[in-house]
């Protein structure tokens, strides 16, 4: 099985079908910006983007580039750089549909899928307008005392979990460290496409400390090497975000023409950042 997981970034991006439900992690986790750019260059369309549980530049860029039909999230924001302009604009104009959620609901709905369950119950939420705008969520009664109403969150089963990781081995095992939301995503998704800083000549499962942070090949569909693949975001614990490049994006994305220029440059220089 050696090497059958490994492919080029573009080949990996071609594994994402138009219209797929793609789960991506938050900026504080391991975001594959390299694969995001490859998807945009490929002209991916109609994605159902599931932010686990929130997203930033990745979602904003995909939305601005016209790749997204529906975004499901607890929040999309550029953080200290302000609102996500392409997201804000697309949602207001109705060009992109939104399924507003809340962080623990996204985690729980993925755990439902991880457990092969149709739903997971949740406390909280009742009385929030989220319940009103999410007709797919329903109330059930706790069958045990105090028999309080609970929200039943239907399982989220992404077609693809897409993320970046520090490294993988040649058997297809991926090291994710304490970013365990990536494990839940991968368990819940039909398959996982992963970019990594490097494929190493080690056996992740043969080393107890490394195995503790490894996602087994069982859940992995494809791996592509992409050095600095989280850029301009950071890879927490490994490298910092490029604040200047993020600011450049935030400024460009704040106008239609600025974003168009940014996108044109991204399309023209496919490997500038990778």
């Amino acid at each position: 099985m050696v090497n059958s997981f490994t492919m080029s970034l573009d080949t990996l991006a071609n594994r994402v079908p138009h219209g797929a439900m793609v789960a991506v992690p938050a900026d504080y986790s391991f975001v594959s910006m390299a694969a995001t750019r490859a998807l945009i260059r490929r002209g991916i369309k109609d994605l159902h983007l599931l932010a686990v549980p929130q997203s930033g530049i990745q979602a904003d860029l995909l939305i601005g580039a016209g790749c997204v039909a529906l975004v499901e999230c607890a929040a999309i924001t550029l953080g200290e750089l302000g609102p996500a302009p392409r997201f804000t604009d697309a949602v207001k104009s109705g060009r992109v549909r939104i399924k507003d959620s809340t962080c623990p609901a996204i985690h729980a709905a993925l755990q439902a899928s991880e457990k092969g369950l149709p739903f997971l119950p949740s406390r909280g939420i009742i009385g929030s307008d989220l319940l009103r705008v999410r007709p797919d969520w329903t109330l059930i009664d706790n069958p045990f005392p105090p028999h309080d109403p609970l929200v039943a969150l239907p399982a989220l089963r992404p077609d693809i979990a897409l993320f970046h990781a520090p490294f993988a081995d040649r058997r297809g095992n991926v090291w994710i460290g304490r970013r365990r939301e990536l494990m839940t995503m991968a368990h819940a998704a039909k398959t996982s496409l992963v970019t990594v800083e490097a494929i190493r000549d080690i056996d992740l499962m043969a080393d107890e400390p490394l195995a503790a942070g490894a996602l087994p090949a069982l859940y992995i569909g494809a791996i592509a090497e992409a050095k600095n693949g989280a850029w301009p975001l950071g890879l927490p614990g490994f490298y910092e975000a490029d604040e200047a490049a993020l600011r450049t994006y935030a400024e460009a994305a704040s106008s239609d023409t600025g974003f168009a220029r940014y996108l044109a440059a991204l399309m023209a220089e496919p490997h500038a950042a990778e």
Partner: protein
Amino acid sequence: MSPAAPTELLIATIARLLQGVGHVAVGASSPIPGAAAFLAQVLAPEAMRVTVLGSQRNNDFTDGGRELFDCAAQGRIDAFFLGGGQIDGEANVNLVGLGAYPNLDLRLPGSFGSAYLYFLVPRVILFREEHSPRVLVPKVDFISAPGVSAPEIYRPGGPQALVTGRALFNFDKAKRRFTLISVHPGETVERIKAATGFAFDLADDIGETLAPDDATLALIRGPVRDAIAEVYPRFAANLIPN
């Protein structure tokens, strides 16, 4: 020691609200609550745990993004902070947007974990620096998380207080109303009334919000500044150095 800057007053005010807390968690984009949590920690007579999202040094979670929420549901988080594009007189918060959903006039980032943590964390402190009728409204346009719940709803948590750049309110769950406790230096009750879009009660003894003493200021400008600098370096740089 130079007198307390407005930010330092807020840090000290929020820190006082954290007295007796065993574990306070601080969410994203929250430098002032984060600094307040560190101040409360250094002042606490017993060990107090501070978890700051985005921190490597003050975030020991190892079970992924869900652990904050699970930990709160287990009753292991005593205090948390929420903000909001709008906050109304019943302590409902709106983090989704202004106008009619979904094609809002102003789209905000989204509800984050508010619709859950507001129910489960015993002391939720609402914090919004801007104190204006635009933010403090009679009724939020979208309830990301409600301030109060019907008795049949499982809800060990909820709003304790509201801290703004101009005043401090407590929240009374039974009356579903805020009570003005103190106004920050330079403010008056009348100006607060004019700047607040919802009706509220007045405490019997409304005074001026207590400014931090020199010892507290030294802590803010020393260890607190150092601790918050890890996650919010620009914020820390703007605090007065010791």
